[in-house]
């Protein structure tokens, strides 16, 4: 019974932490746009949190540049345990237009394990919403 309760609570209140690893901030404004009145992620109980300690879903954007790489890993380790990573946008998935540049690592999955990919350049706010909901359904 306790397990079911914990599972229900994790589905119902995913707190997100936004992480930009060198993106062109189109996906970042779409993530923030998902919190504003028209899409309003708070209906699903999603809150944008400032510290990794409070978050359990990390939304990353951007092809990981060389400088950000070890910071990304360090933040990933800081998030308390039941944590998930959502890679938003084509850059986070495969480096998109910047594939082959000398300073980037390609997608987020080269650095940290990723649970859900949201395609699009930039991913539309409703696509991000759908991604978060599908990720929670997978729980």
């Amino acid at each position, binding site marked *: 019974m306790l397990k079911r309760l914990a599972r229900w609570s*994790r589905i119902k*209140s995913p707190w997100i932490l936004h992480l930009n690893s060198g993106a062109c901030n189109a996906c970042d404004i779409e993530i923030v746009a998902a919190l504003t009145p028209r899409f309003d992620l708070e209906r699903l109980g999603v809150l944008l949190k*400032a510290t990794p*300690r409070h978050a359990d879903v990390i939304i990353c954007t951007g092809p990981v540049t060389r400088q950000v790489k070890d910071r990304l890993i360090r933040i990933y380790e800081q998030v308390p345990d*039941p944590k998930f990573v959502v890679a938003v946008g084509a850059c986070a998935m495969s480096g998109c237009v910047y594939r082959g540049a000398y300073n980037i690592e390609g997608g987020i999955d080269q650095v940290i394990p990723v649970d859900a990919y949201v395609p699009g350049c930039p991913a539309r706010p409703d696509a991000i919403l759908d991604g978060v909901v599908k990720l929670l359904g997978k729980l």
Partner: protein
Amino acid sequence: MAVIRTLLYLLVYPGLLFLFVYSTFCEWFDRKVYARLQNRMGPTHTGKWGLLQPVADFIKLMSKEDIVPDLADKRLFNALPVFGLAIVSAAAMLLPVWNFDLAVPGPTSFAGDIIVVLYMLSLPTLIFFLAGWASTSFFSTIGATRVLTMLFGYEVPLFLSVLSPALLAGSWRLAEIAHFYQQKPLLILPNLLGFVVALIAVQAKLERTPFDIPHAETEVVGGTFTEYSGKKLAFFRLMTDIEMVVSAGLLAAVFLAGFPGGALLGFANFVVKTLFIIFLLSLMRALTSRIRVDQVVSFAWKYLAPLAVLQLLIVILIKGFLS
């Protein structure tokens, strides 16, 4: 029999169970009003109209991994949330709701209990400071120092404004104050000025938006709670909710003529009046932007303190006029 009755008091009615349910309801109410004021919908999908959202947050946090920073002071770091919760729910016991009878001053309603409640309400600020100081990260230390600087700002006006109606009623017992204003409802009007000052001061005590500098999201990231996660964070969030309920109850008891009527009517009065005050608080939260720490202290001493003293003057004049 008396033991069971006090146990019942402790655990069920004004105790933990009721407080947990009612404070989560107040948090839901506050988030919903705040969202509606911002033209969006707020939590809706967890339970009916999103009622269970704070409960879901609480359980999720309880089931998360708990991290204690290496350099933090372990004993202090773990003990603080429990202390905070205990203090605030003890303060809730003293509210003059339902379980008092005017004649016999029992353990939960005695002469001078308004002072005890006020003191207990200022202890959580100290707890926030220690929490920030114990988790030795940059941002929590800065948040901790900010908590204290703000304390000097709003504490004196809050005490002055809350005590002036007590002065008019001529007694330090919450139950008697409430009873006095129930007899003479006309006397509530002169206290309106004190009510406004107290509202602003309580908003600062609860660290809500115009004064949420200690845990300002965009400046000092998490402020005092940067390092907390999992169970301890859950307790801290519950503590702030209960603190909101208790201070709303205190303001209602002192300024809005308490909670008349027997068991059921008194409780209904309690709920309606506290929700009205919480509505005012979230209204204030939605309409103002955060101001800086030095501006808080200067605002408190330039405007709040003189108004509180003016309120005291009015009360003394009326008292002289009445007798």
